[in-house]
């Protein structure tokens, strides 16, 4: 297979092309549903091929068109990009499936929704695979716009308001990122990350202010988009008011793409030496710790199921940044693993929460009492997600917490290991009552409710199964994660 170097491009192109076909055929519901799911499956296949290639031969470049770098655009496919891309492609499948099952009831325009989801996923793949910073910016903009739109498409008052707020802040973030790109271009004259890196090796010393400002703007820009505390203000409203599939994809995938985008810029374009020479680690550590603790505390105060899940995402984003900022081999492995694990468990949680709301109408935690007996499978999946969030061994969340805690101890930073413990405890305090209440609480008036039919059950069951599978066999993901973590120590 010598055309495998085009696989990463094809991952994106398949999704993009389908995104343009779907609205044209909007009248043929069945056909576009199959196209939509088919595009997800095909892109998954390509992402799998990309990951296999990276695992066997390491980083490779894939040039677009016939223009050679530095003039043309190339995809710089390394272990981190391939891993994240595979995570996106894998998670997109059950979420797309769920979207296909529920779109009619939840959103205004089914074909529009499919188009946006396809565009969004394509852009997410682009962010983590590209080797060109302006290209990354374009993908970021596509994903931002699509992400805002898949919230607003629910067309309720709350979702429109939330998506407008998201749009404004997201535009601010984009501004920051574009400004940073301009500053980098100013001193290097390049947009290709590899060339930027090489040029910066010799010129960074002459323009310390430019580099610092650029990294600062990057951090703010990506921080807004990845909802790093205290730039997370848009997230709870946006994620909780979106349609279910959108919430899952926003919480599970979209924020991760920006985190990975930032990390890739740090080691591909700036170089880790510059990153470490600036006082960025303490800043990031503080922000991550605050995110973990305050996100969990806010979640504690929520009475609305989806808002609670959204605040929990703020805390989990903190975990990933914590792992990155600790900057040790095992901490990074933990952070990257958590990208996958959190996507799985939050996906399972959001999908099962969506099913609960759809089947029973219960949005508030207080209405959930006794529902576990009516919807045992849905709440079973929810329970798996919760146990994984708390970090019970045997579930995926435990493995990433283990690596993060080891990473903290590796750096002799015991307090951060304790932060992880405290946040796990807070997770337990706000998640467990939901489950105990659902399974052992008094019955409510919602008598007729039952588990949904099998086609709607399956996506969340797949995600729940994934949480258990990766909890028992993290070896499935570890080789690629190890390779990705070692990239930062070249």
């Amino acid at each position: 297979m010598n055309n495998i170097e085009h696989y990463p491009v094809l991952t994106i192109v398949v999704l993009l092309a389908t995104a343009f076909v779907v609205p044209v055929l909007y009248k043929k519901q069945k056909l576009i549903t199959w196209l939509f799911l088919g595009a997800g499956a095909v892109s998954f296949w390509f992402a799998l091929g990309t990951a296999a290639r990276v695992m066997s031969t390491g980083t490779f470049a894939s040039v677009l068109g016939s223009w050679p770098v530095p003039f043309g655009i190339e995809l710089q496919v390394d272990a981190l990009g391939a891993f994240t891309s595979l995570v996106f492609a894998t998670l997109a499948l059950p979420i797309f499936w769920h979207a296909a099952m529920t779109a009619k009831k939840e959103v205004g325009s089914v074909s529009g929704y499919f188009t946006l989801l396809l565009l969004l996923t394509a852009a997410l793949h682009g962010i983590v695979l590209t080797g060109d910073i302006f290209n990354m910016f374009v993908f970021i903009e596509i994903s931002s716009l699509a992400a805002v739109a898949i919230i607003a498409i629910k067309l309720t008052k709350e979702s429109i308001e939330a998506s407008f707020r998201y749009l404004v802040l997201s535009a601010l973030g984009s501004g920051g990122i574009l400004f940073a790109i301009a500053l980098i271009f100013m001193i290097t004259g390049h947009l290709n990350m590899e060339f930027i890196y090489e040029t910066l090796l010799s010129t960074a010393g002459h323009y310390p202010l430019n580099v610092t400002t650029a990294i600062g703007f990057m951090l703010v820009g990506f921080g807004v988009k990845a909802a790093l505390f205290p730039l997370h203000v848009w997230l709870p409203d946006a994620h909780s008011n979106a349609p279910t599939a959108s919430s899952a994809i926003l919480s599970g995938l979209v924020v991760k793409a920006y985190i990975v985008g930032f990390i890739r810029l740090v080691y591909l374009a700036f170089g880790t030496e510059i990153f470490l020479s600036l006082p960025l680690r303490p800043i990031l550590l503080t922000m991550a710790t605050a995110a973990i603790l305050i996100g969990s505390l806010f979640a504690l105060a929520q009475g609305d199921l989806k808002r609670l899940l959204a605040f929990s995402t703020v805390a989990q984003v903190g975990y990933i940044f914590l792992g990155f900022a600790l900057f040790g081999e095992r901490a990074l492995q933990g952070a990257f693993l958590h990208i996958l694990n959190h996507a799985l468990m939050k996906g399972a949680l959001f999908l099962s929460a969506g099913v609960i709301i759809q089947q029973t109408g219960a949005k508030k935690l207080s209405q959930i009492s006794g529902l576990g007996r009516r919807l045992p499978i849905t709440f079973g999946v929810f329970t798996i997600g919760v146990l994984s969030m708390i970090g019970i061994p045997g579930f995926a969340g435990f493995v990433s917490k283990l690596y993060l805690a080891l990473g903290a101890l590796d750096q002799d930073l015991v307090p951060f290991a304790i932060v992880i413990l405290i946040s796990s405890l807070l997770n337990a305090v706000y998640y467990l009552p939901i489950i105990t209440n659902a399974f052992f609480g008094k019955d409510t008036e919602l008598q007729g409710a039952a588990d949904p039919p099998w086609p709607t059950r399956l996506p969340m069951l797949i995600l729940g199964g994934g949480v258990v599978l990766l909890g028992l066999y993290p070896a499935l993901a570890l080789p690629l994660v190890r390779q990705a973590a070692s990239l930062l120590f070249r």
Partner: protein
Amino acid sequence: MQNTSMVPVYAVLIPLLTTVVIYLIERRSWQWRNRLSTLACLGSFLVVISQYQAIQQGSTLVAKYPTIMPPLGLSFRMDSLGFLAAAVISGVWFLVTVYATEYMAKEHHKNRFYPFLVLTLAGAMGVVLSGDLFTFFLSFELMSLSAYVLVVHEETEEAMKAGYKYLILTIVGGLALFFAIVAVFELAGTVAFVPGGLIKEPSRLALFAFIGFFIGFGIKAGIVPLHVWLPEAHPVAPSPASALLSGLMLKTGAYGLLRVVFDIFDYRAIQAAGWNQALLVFAAITIIMGSAVAITQDDIKRRLAYSSVGQMGYILLGIGLLQERALIGVIFHIFAHALMKSTLFLSAGAIIYRTGKRKVSEWAGLGREMPLTFLAFTAAAFSMIGIPPMVGFVSKWELGLGALDAGNWGFVVLLLLSSLLNFVYYFPAIQAAFFGGGHGHGEQVNSKRDVSLTMLWPMITMAVMIVLIDLWPRNVALELAEKAAHTFFVIAK
């Protein structure tokens, strides 16, 4: 001598897989649900004791699965301590399950109770047969979380409140253990149980790990001041579940502490750093507190629960002494207390089942109505007090000798004092039951209404064991305890 053997794995897998089968068939046949539940426990028990010969000859059975869940990996191991603990857990579990088939017959949600009863056994067996801290932790969490379902079985407001406390403290304990395990892995690069220990030098991180272990196991074992969940959670559970919680699951905390002190740390490092002094202080507080508060409780199940707190103090005391003879006492007490407390809870359960009287003050005359039940209760209670030749006496004797070996008179006095307190809260209940109350009510005296045989024979069996084990020419359990304690001290040297 280490032998690769699947036996420890089978002992865990039998209940684990049966849980799935029970879940699948329970809607079709409740008879098979009950039969399978008892059979799973019996099967696990038989698999364990089939290895008696091998253990007697001093071999350790090991099974390793490093590819599952790296970097820590799963491993199982059965040595003489593991054998004794596994045998008593699965054996008592079997008896309790037999008892439960009758006791729970009129209860609701039985289809939830039985699978979780067996699943909890799988966790408990995993705890005592694990070969490393991680497998231990995994099983420990499985056991603790599935036991939650047993605790809140009644679904009353009281049960839910107690259950919440139990759950949160379980999570806290789990997180403390998690931290400790991570610290051990960081220090030693492995978390396997190695005779002689992994951590030979006290350090700051090692101290954190030790504190983590103490909190984690202390919560499970009900060490004062970490016992707050125990007196609430044990009484609200259905009686068979209380017997398991108090008789067996508390012991897993003590078992874990034993393993950590001797197989993870080098016990001499602990001695040198003086950390065991802290254990002794907590042990003394626990013994006094548990026994003293037990006296004030009128609800029999609460009284028994507080008594368990006091008894766990003995075990902690023995561990803290770091002394071979005391350790024999500890290990034998794990065995003895499992029998005694299970018998007490089962017979108390039988009394509540028959008469609905939970308060000790209402028991006057009941002994004449349910003589066999009360005989079992009396045997176990006398053993708790420490009257020879019952098993409770043996462990106290060894503990006392151990304290003397360590040159500590104070603890001997403490043991005697606690025995006296035990006497104060057990004896009046028995006296009232047999000799107190309505002589005038002839018809009550004549209506001997012991519970049915299904419920009766498990407690009678255990009561007989309590009385006879030390009268038997060979006290097998004591031999095993001696062997286990000896291994800990000899290999370390």
